[in-house]
């Protein structure tokens, strides 16, 4: 890119300017002596642009090409001029808003994101929570009413988002509450999915509802199995071992051909039944049972409500656990493990419960995934999945339940949304935003993390209140191991 050569030169100049500004302030002992005029600012920007012009002349404006008689020089004045213009405008904007102003916009942003927690009246947050819950509870019908053309696609997307909400909540127990960085959470998702797929394909009588608790228990067992070796590990080492565990599970699934089908996966995983009735066409289908005319959308709505209830269960249990001794011990463990031991808390058991309960919810989500897809293969359980789930938890704010929801909508919904913004290409001819969606998405993530380094919801709600509930700012709360 053209600006590659110019951006460093601009940013190198920044510390000098900032330092000079600071010195000027310290000399005066308060208000700055030097006041920046628009003229100074313009001269500075022109200077930067000139520098770019000189430096970029041979790199950008001239280009040698192989011609029949030897080398030929072609000129690219448009490119050169664009680069100079970008530097001029960029430098001017930075000067106006960051470098040469008494109230840099960066500082204002920081003030708005950190510092004192804004106090919102209790009923406002409660009203927002109820409204959001109502929307989630009736989402399939809202979608059918508002977007009848895309209903199947949108309900499917909602199911996907809810699956990630549930996974995020499960991982939040391990990473957000207990403060143990787990990079291999997808292993439990895989264990849950394969448990259900194998059980249902081998035993006729096992359906989704019987397999669900079994899958959760098996995943919890694997959580314990992972917990034991990582108990004595801290920080980065813990993260590496959990990462390796996730890969071990995937590689075993890939190579244990006789049982898992290897890369071919397992197909024909049964669909969930509605009190024993399947969502099929005909007299004995669930649609007929409910007195509705058969439509394929019914099965999607049903799946939506299954994952909605599972996610609610996860949230309910997590919120309850936070108020119980074990949940408080998780958070205490995140804050200070040595102090925990001095208070008689068995940190080994506490870590194991966090791992196994987190894994159990991962297992539930996994068996839901298997029944929704009808087909699973090890490809669905790569490290990227773990990374996405972890990114949801971190982006939402460690330990925050509502943050996970927002982050799932932003991350999973955001990528999908960017697929549908082709019309924006009309604004800039030759630029198709759909092609750049991952890039745009990555930049948005970077921007969010710069703006809110501790995630979207940074406050911690105390688990017990004596008189008045006060939110605790993120700067107080420690992040635990491996962050």
């Amino acid at each position, binding site marked *: 890119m053209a600006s590659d050569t110019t951006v460093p030169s601009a940013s190198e100049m920044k510390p000098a300017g900032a330092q000079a500004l600071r010195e000027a302030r310290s000399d005066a002992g308060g208000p700055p002596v030097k006041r920046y005029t628009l003229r100074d600012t313009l001269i500075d920007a022109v200077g930067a642009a000139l520098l770019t012009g000189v430096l970029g002349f041979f790199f950008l404006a001239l280009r040698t090409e192989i011609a029949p008689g030897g080398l030929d020089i072609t000129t690219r004045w448009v490119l050169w001029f664009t680069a100079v213009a970008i530097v001029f405008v960029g430098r001017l904007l930075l000067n106006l808003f960051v470098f040469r102003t008494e109230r840099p916009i960066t500082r204002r942003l920081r003030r708005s994101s950190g510092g004192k927690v804004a106090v919102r009246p209790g009923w406002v947050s409660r009203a927002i929570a109820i409204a959001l819950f109502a929307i989630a509870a009736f989402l399939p019908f809202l979608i059918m009413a508002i977007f009848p053309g895309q209903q199947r696609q949108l309900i499917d997307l909602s199911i996907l988002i809810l699956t990630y909400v549930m996974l995020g909540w499960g991982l939040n127990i391990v990473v957000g509450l207990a403060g143990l960085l787990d990079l291999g959470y997808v292993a439990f998702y895989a264990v849950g999915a394969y448990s259900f797929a194998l059980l249902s394909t081998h035993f006729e009588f096992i359906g989704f509802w019987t397999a669900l608790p079994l899958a959760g228990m098996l995943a919890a067992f694997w959580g314990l199995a992972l917990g034991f070796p990582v108990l004595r590990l801290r920080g980065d080492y813990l993260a590496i071992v959990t990462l390796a565990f996730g890969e071990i599970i995937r590689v075993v699934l890939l190579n244990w051909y006789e049982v898992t089908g290897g890369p071919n996966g397992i197909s024909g995983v049964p669909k969930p039944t509605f009190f024993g009735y399947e969502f099929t066409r005909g007299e004995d289908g669930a649609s007929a049972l409910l007195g509705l005319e058969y439509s394929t959308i019914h099965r999607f709505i049903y799946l939506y409500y299954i994952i909605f209830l599972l996610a609610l269960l996860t949230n309910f249990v997590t919120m309850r656990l936070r108020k119980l001794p074990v949940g408080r011990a998780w958070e205490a463990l995140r804050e200070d493990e040595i102090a925990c031991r001095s208070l008689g808390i068995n940190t080994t058991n506490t870590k194991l419960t966090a791992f196994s309960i987190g894994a159990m919810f991962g297992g539930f989500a996994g068996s839901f995934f298997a029944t929704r897809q009808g087909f699973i293969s090890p490809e669905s359980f790569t490290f990227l999945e773990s990374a996405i789930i972890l990114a949801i938890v971190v982006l939402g704010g460690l330990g925050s339940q509502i943050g996970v929801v927002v982050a799932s909508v932003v991350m999973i919904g955001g990528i999908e949304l960017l697929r549908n913004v082709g019309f924006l290409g009309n604004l800039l001819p030759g630029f198709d935003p759909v092609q750049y969606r991952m890039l745009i998405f990555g930049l948005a993530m970077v921007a969010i993390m710069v703006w809110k380094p501790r995630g979207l919801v940074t406050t911690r709600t*105390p688990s017990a209140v004596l008189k008045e509930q006060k939110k605790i700012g993120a700067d*107080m709360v420690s992040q635990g191991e491996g962050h």
Partner: protein
Amino acid sequence: MSIAAEPRVPVAGTSVHRWETDPVLTVEHLTMRFGGLVAVGDLSFSVGRGDITALIGPNGAGKTTVFNCVTGFYKPTEGRIVMRHGAGAKANLVEKVTGSSARYETDKGSGVFLLERMPDFEISKKAKVARTFQNIRLFGGMTLLENLLVAQHNPLTVASGFTFAGILGLSSYRKAHREAVEKAVYWLERVGLVDRADDPAGDLPYGDQRRLEIARAMCTDPQLLCLDEPAAGLNPRESTELNQFLQFIREQGTSVLLIEHDMGVVMEISDHVVVLDYGVKISDGDSGFVKNDPKVIAAYLGVDDEAEIDVPEVRAEVTAARHEHEHQADPQAARDSN
């Protein structure tokens, strides 16, 4: 310092001391080595039930190492550490437990615990030894109330039916939770922090954090409270309040073992003082005995302060003690290698 000017008291042992007849904790031949470094060498002392016992000594004398051994954070290289519940020395029971492979034995409120065999969390949970830390270790992101509730983890876990009854929201757990909050409020009132119960602990000023840490330790219902430099960084007024608070804790039936540099605190409130230097006990007795012990004076005032001691007999003893000290080659060499 006016230590040397005061009249000397007779050698300990002429009167009967509580730490000899009714010890709550005995440390016997405790040795802790870190590689070649002997941090604590063959140390023996007792803590009397209901006493305030101070462990003092210059920097690097091994005081915190002793604490870490007692509270299970270090496994001692050699030695036995016995914690007793219920009155008496229980010599027979101690020998019986030592001979068996058991870590402890309890019987209706009385019991004997071999702390060197127990993991750290069990020492707090079963043997009822609580501790605080030299550099305060609070749960900074949790409120004061939560800090004190975490300290009641074990009784609350039992009350929550090991989480299962708690998840279902049974009333037995809610009752236990209310009682736990009441107990937390009681201790918050004792340390004067009840108005800040819903603030994060990390927001408290230093002196308040120290008091909160002691309150948190008291919420585990300890029989022995180990305080690692509780007066460090406190101003004189806070120091006085701390003394009163420690007296109160002692009146509640909890024995106190404290490490302290502030001689004002130590001499004012301690019933029993044990002095360490280079990991070896150099003096043991009540505060009057210890502060006139020439070995202590030599260790504290150093060798160059001899001229300032204006009582001739004391100066002679200090000189003698100093020579004796210099000839203790082993610990000296160990410290040099550090």
